[in-house]
């Protein structure tokens, strides 16, 4: 177990300076991820009731989470009525053991699975692999990461941090394909040629679940490739693993989420496969594993429960300047970006205590969130929590002590900002960009201004008198005059 805290900022440096990548890779990454945000905006603008849908989605999630026990029992009853075996797992290990037992009781050695962040959380692949089960990921991006022994870099596009040439090299190494051909259509074909035979012969198939519909007992997957439908339908034995927070009341509510999810994630109106698995086929078997793994604990936390509303669209990371300039792997976590920042500390406070500081708190994540999680406020609350729990790095502690003294004293603040501006003009570069100034490590400090706001006010508005306390100041009419 690695309990060393994740240093996201340091990992981000590696992403920005990675010598193996072409010099501009991080710029391409940034542009590619931002393009998703732009497509999301265009898709949202098409829908006149978009904001109303977000309100509804948020309310439906809050309603369901506040009655989660009842909805879970309803879901379970309906799934059982459909002939499905329902299992409950308190944590990742229990989940993995249940899956292993199901596979072992059928003598299954080969499992095909579609993408599931929950099984990443539970480290299911490694667990099963050590016990002689060969697990094949059938989602292209997820398979790439599996073959390269890397976790997903993005919850929607696991291989987002790879160039097509990286994939061409990887597939050449593993499958003997043409290393010179880095065309995505060719590489997708290589994947199809090598994965289909595995799917056709597998003894069992596994999927995650985007939604679990209480009213019908169905698991819903939202995918593009067709791999989830093949994994779930070709073998006779089907296992669906789903987090307990994925339950929603009925299909009427499901419609709201289906309209929001693909638009938020990819800027598409819908993905190619919106699949509803309610019952096994004749002669087949279907199992659903409902997994807690820390969710019930977060649900009872009056500050941090709202992250359970998440429908895993990834819009918050696509809009986040820190994510786009750091890459998803820098978070060292199953969930990355803004949503990861507010989820991961509840799994392991010490290990992820630096994550809440990997944010500019610009609020963009909250504004694009289809279920209206107040992500940036949660990030701020987590910073407070880290402070309260003493989970602060030494440099941050020292800097915060100084900031606290200066910011709580107006005179000291004024003096400090004037001295600071002067210092920035006269100090040599190395004195400003040193290791103690974490902020300036990868940024240029803004050019020093010739006068501070208070100096400007004194000269232009105040007849030499500094402005009164800002809080008593009404907005002036200077723009209308």
């Amino acid at each position: 177990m690695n309990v060393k805290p994740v240093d996201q900022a340091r990992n981000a440096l590696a992403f920005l300076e990675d010598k193996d990548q072409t010099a501009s890779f991080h710029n391409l990454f940034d542009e590619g991820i931002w393009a998703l945000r732009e497509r999301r905006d265009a898709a949202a603008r098409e829908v006149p009731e978009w904001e109303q849908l977000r309100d509804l989605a948020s309310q439906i999630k809050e309603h369901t989470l506040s009655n989660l026990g009842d909805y879970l029992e309803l879901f379970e009853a309906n799934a059982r009525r459909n002939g499905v075996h329902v299992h409950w797992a308190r944590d990742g290990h229990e989940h993995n053991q249940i899956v292993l037992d199901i596979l072992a009781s059928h003598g299954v050695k080969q499992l095909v699975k579609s993408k599931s962040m929950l099984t990443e959380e539970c480290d299911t692949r490694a667990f099963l692999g050590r016990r002689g089960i060969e697990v094949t990921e059938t989602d292209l991006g997820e398979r790439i990461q599996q073959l390269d022994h890397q976790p997903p870099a993005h919850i929607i596009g696991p291989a987002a941090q790879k160039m097509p040439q990286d994939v061409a090299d990887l597939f050449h190494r593993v499958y003997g394909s043409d290393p010179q051909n880095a065309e995505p259509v060719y590489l997708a074909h290589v994947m199809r040629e090598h994965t289909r035979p595995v799917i056709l012969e597998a003894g069992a198939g596994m999927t995650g679940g985007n939604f679990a519909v209480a009213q019908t007992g169905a698991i819903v997957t939202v995918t593009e490739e067709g791999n989830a439908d093949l994994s779930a339908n070709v073998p006779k034995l089907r296992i669906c693993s789903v987090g307990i927070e994925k339950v929603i009341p009925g299909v009427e509510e499901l419609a709201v989420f289906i309209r929001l999810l693909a638009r938020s994630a990819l800027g598409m109106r819908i993905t190619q496969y919106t699949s509803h698995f309610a019952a096994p086929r004749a002669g087949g078997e279907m199992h659903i594993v409902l997994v807690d793994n820390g969710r019930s604990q977060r649900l009872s936390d009056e500050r941090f429960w709202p992250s359970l509303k998440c429908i895993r669209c990834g819009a918050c990371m696509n809009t986040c300047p820190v994510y786009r300039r750091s890459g998803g792997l820098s978070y060292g976590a199953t969930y990355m970006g803004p949503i990861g920042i507010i989820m991961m500390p509840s799994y392991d406070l010490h290990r992820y205590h630096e994550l809440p500081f990997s944010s500019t708190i610009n609020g963009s994540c909250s504004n694009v969130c289809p279920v209206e999680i107040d992500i940036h406020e949660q990030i701020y609350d987590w910073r407070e929590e880290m402070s309260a729990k003493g989970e602060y790095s030494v440099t941050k502690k020292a800097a915060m002590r100084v900031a606290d003294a200066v910011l709580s004293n107006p005179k000291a603040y004024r003096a400090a900002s004037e001295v600071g501006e002067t210092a920035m003009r006269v100090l040599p570069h190395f004195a400003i960009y040193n290791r103690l100034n974490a902020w300036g490590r990868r940024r240029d400090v803004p050019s020093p201004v010739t006068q501070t706001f208070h100096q400007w006010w004194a000269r232009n508005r105040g007849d030499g008198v500094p402005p009164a306390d800002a809080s008593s100041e009404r907005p002036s009419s200077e723009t209308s005059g």
Partner: protein
Amino acid sequence: MAAREEILTAVRQHPPPSRDLPQVPAFQGAGDRLVDEFVAALELIEGDCVVQPPSDLQSWLSERFPEAKRICSAVAELEGTVTPEDFADWNEPADVDVTVVRSPLGVAETGSILVTERELRVNTIATLAQHLVVLLDPADLVPTIHQAYAHPSFQKAAYAVLLSGPSGTADIGGVPVHPAQGATTLTVILSPPTDGGQGGTEAPGGSTNAGDP
């Protein structure tokens, strides 16, 4: 089952403040030209739509897929070379070139069509076939996803899938490509059932200038 009781107790311990389940309004979508909207939406996701149904489906198929050898027909309108019932194992449709199936529901907003185990009989014929041809009665089009979910299939089907264009992926370099693991092309033919057991006479091509259902 200790885990079940423990989890249910835990989620009831300190739940978030209770909130009523909101009523989802009956959103009607942008317009009332359902066929046009459906065709445009399907085009966005690189699916094809044949608005005037061919008078002879068989010859249309051989023209459209001249290389196709194995045609799996799940519809009364076409014989094909194989039917779903011929597959003993659900991995067998892997060598099917074209599957033809009828959908009971299309969605104008998204260009999606619904299929369930009722139409497919063998669920994998839709995803394993290289090409998918879907017959859809334009009268079965609904405006948005909201109306789609009122379809009874979502209450009773063991497997129901809204298919929206051919299988794809943008997992490499963010470039959308077809196919991934599923069908390479998806073509919807807007055609009312010709002999659906309702005693209707065969209506050769162009019976429809479909508006709203």
